[in-house]
């Protein structure tokens, strides 16, 4: 079955979404991430969406839900790399990703999660 890979780095989980996700794939990622937070005892989740040229309400909801679930499981989520056109569209659509921390790139996202790899 098709899956988006989740990498572990210390107590962080890293995801780079590089495919145009259909809805089932988005739900699978949400389930996988939530399970991995528990099994890997992760404290942070970094989701890189710089390769995504579209975030619609379904993907947006998946991101919001994942962040909320992570929070309940004592992990923080940062979404990084959103393209400007995607940000404009998302807000006009009415989706503000409430409660989701964002950063411009992976490095800044890492810093937000309290990691400095320089």
């Amino acid at each position, binding site marked *: 079955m098709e899956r988006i890979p989740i990498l572990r780095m210390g107590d962080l989980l890293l995801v780079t979404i590089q495919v145009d996700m259909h809805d089932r794939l988005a739900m699978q990622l949400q389930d996988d991430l939530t399970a991995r937070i528990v099994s890997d005892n992760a404290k942070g989740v970094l989701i890189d969406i710089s390769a995504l040229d579209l975030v619609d*309400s379904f993907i947006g909801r998946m991101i919001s839900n994942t962040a909320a679930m992570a929070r309940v499981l004592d992990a923080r989520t940062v979404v990084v790399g959103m393209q400007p*056109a995607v940000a404009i*569209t998302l807000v*006009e659509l*009415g989706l503000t990703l409430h409660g989701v921390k964002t950063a411009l790139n992976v490095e800044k996202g890492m810093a937000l999660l309290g990691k400095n790899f320089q």
Partner: protein
Amino acid sequence: MTFDTRSNAVQFETPLLDYHLAWRTGRVTLPLRTDEDVVGLRKQVRERAVAIALSLVDQTKLVTAASELARNTIKYGGGGEVHLDGLDDSMRRGIGLLFVDAGQGIPDIDSALRDGFTTGGGLGLGFGGSKRLVDEFDVDSRPKEGTAVLIIKWKR
């Protein structure tokens, strides 16, 4: 309304929103049944938008609106199809998308367009939100017969 099983096409006794006939070039009709169909449509819309040189923001808005409405066609309309048209009214070029399903229809379109209104457990942003993302938006919904939604994005 009849359902043509041979071509899987939804055919109505009177056409739903199928105007702009004279402006149309290169109609492509795609089925909307599965999650993968939505992804396929997004790709095709993106290609057409790039071909008429829509700005990146307008491309993204159109593809996002297409994604929302395609999902609605599948989730609420029980599947259907989408006609993807190039438009040229000699003043400007654009892209039109006509989503058609043979579902139960939308009982109250005004409510359905309101942000936060949902009957399907979603966010209730797809329908009203996609209206904000395009230049023209029209709905024809008939109880027990089906729903057609037309969107157009013009090149600025």
